């Protein structure tokens, strides 16, 4: 082939951009196609089931009278702790394993990739909710059958929405921390500090200082989520949720995405 007749332009007229749905499917696959990812998903499912079995045994053995939301609350412990870890890892594994180099050469729009990752964890949140709602219902029915007591459902539909929000907030906060630190251990540790150490510190501060007690619900995202957990959220609880959510979820997420857009991918 002589140089003079060689093409100097790429014919891209027949090539479509990568559809967003395809990016999401690939990102979902990446969550589960490594040993670490798969075991994390299995661990979340197994622990959730285990907690539920224990809870059922305890309420039956001690003749307690649980409601549907009590089972949802029981499952929120394993899900609430481990789903955010999956959120962190969905971003950071690209950096710790350096696959971001490949990912961003196949799709140069980093924002699209991040958006696809975010949508993939939202899908996982919905799946977790569906599984949680079904398992919780099953536990409630089994409780009724074994104890002979009346089964209390409460506002089951409303609770499902609350728990979906909780799972989404948990995963999204993990995701935001992952994007902010781009490092798996740092992201996970900081997330656990935020979710276990910080509430204690805030609690002590609130107990010692009156002015802080009234401020806490507005700046402590864990605290403002508790009315969702017990299903009592009402009035300005929603406003507190939004304000504290902006601080702990939206701001880290925006800074993280900005950082990823500008980062030199090594």
């Amino acid at each position, binding site marked *: 082939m002589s140089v003079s007749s060689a093409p100097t332009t790429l014919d891209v007229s027949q090539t479509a951009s990568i559809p967003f749905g395809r990016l999401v499917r690939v990102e979902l696959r990446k969550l589960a196609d490594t040993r670490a990812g798969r075991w994390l998903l299995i661990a979340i499912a197994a622990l959730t089931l285990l907690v539920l079995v224990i809870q059922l045994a305890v309420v039956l053995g001690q003749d307690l009278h649980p409601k549907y939301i009590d089972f949802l609350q029981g499952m929120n412990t394993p899900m609430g702790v481990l789903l955010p870890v999956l959120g962190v890892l969905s971003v950071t594994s690209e950096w710790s394993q350096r696959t971001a180099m490949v990912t961003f*050469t196949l799709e140069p729009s980093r924002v699209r990739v991040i958006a696809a990752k975010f949508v993939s964890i939202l899908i996982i949140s919905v799946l977790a909710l569906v599984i949680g709602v079904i398992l919780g219902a099953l536990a409630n029915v089994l409780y009724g059958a074994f104890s002979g007591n009346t089964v209390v459902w409460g506002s089951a539909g409303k609770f499902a929405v609350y728990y979906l929000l909780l799972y989404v907030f948990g995963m999204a906060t993990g995701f935001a921390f992952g994007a902010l630190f781009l490092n798996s251990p740092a992201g996970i540790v900081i997330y656990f500090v935020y979710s276990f150490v910080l509430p204690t510190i805030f609690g002590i501060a609130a107990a010692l200082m009156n002015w802080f007690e009234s401020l806490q619900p507005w700046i402590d995202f864990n605290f403002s989520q508790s009315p969702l957990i017990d299903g009592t959220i009402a009035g300005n609880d929603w406003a507190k949720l939004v304000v504290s959510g902006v601080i702990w979820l939206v701001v880290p997420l925006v800074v993280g995405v900005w950082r990823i857009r500008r980062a030199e991918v090594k």
Partner: protein
Amino acid sequence: MIKVEGLTRAYGSFIAVDDISFECQAGTVTGFLGPNGAGKTTTMRVMVGLTPATRGDVTIGGLHYRDIPNPGRHVGVLLDASAQHAGRTGREVLEIGARTMGLDGSRVDEMLDLVSLDAREAKRRVRNYSLGMRQRLGIAHALLGDPSVLILDEPANGLDPAGIRWMRGLLKGYADQGGTVFLSSHLLHEVEQIADEMILIGNGRIVARGTRDELLRNATGGQSTTLVTALDNAQLTAALTEKGLEVHPAGAGLRVTAEPVEVGRVAAEKQIVLTDLRAGNEGGLEDLFLELTADTQRDVIASGTTASEVSA
């Protein structure tokens, strides 16, 4: 097909790539040569948008990389064979690439076949791959989307001699079919046999470029050189010098600025027994490479020792 114009990349006061410009033509292999840290990888990273340029511009087929839709279908990239998730299997790495690009699953098998990774190896996790196997996987990944442009950073790194020969054939064939190949190396011999054009970079600047022959001509100042060894080198030196030829000791023999036939003729006249006589330009190219990039070499070669000896 690839056009780099006035590309500069600075990190603070350190300038990794300093105002370089070049082009790669379709249907050719362009070798990008330089010692470690010369700026090769940085240049390639800018090409595919992983690193922003401080100044200058790179286009591939007239487009910025970020503007190429589904770029994997047009530009095959291998920047670092080790940049793969250690927990994924080789096949899964290709599956993800194929799915992202929207390719048929059968393409994965074709590529595994092409780079000679068998079914058992493809099922192993990348963690357990040797560097050579990772390199093969990376080449398979770059070729997955049947691109018309290939950008490969040190693709021969870690390959055994048979693997290097295989890769040469693969890339040569790819260029012969009209593809554009841009590959880097810090080893001259990996590249000189397949590169239609070579670009030598040192300290972030292009220090020489051209075809192998053009570079050789420059290397020897337009003159041929000959490497010769005689039973009695001193006698041969005297005879050659008498004829007005320039002679320098080189290893066990001599480097003469002349065609081999002239040296042979002198030896025949003086009845000097030669044990070795060959064109010395090969070394010339290597000398040139080392000389041009000398400022950036980490290992300074002792004066009086020529590069050809070092490599011998």
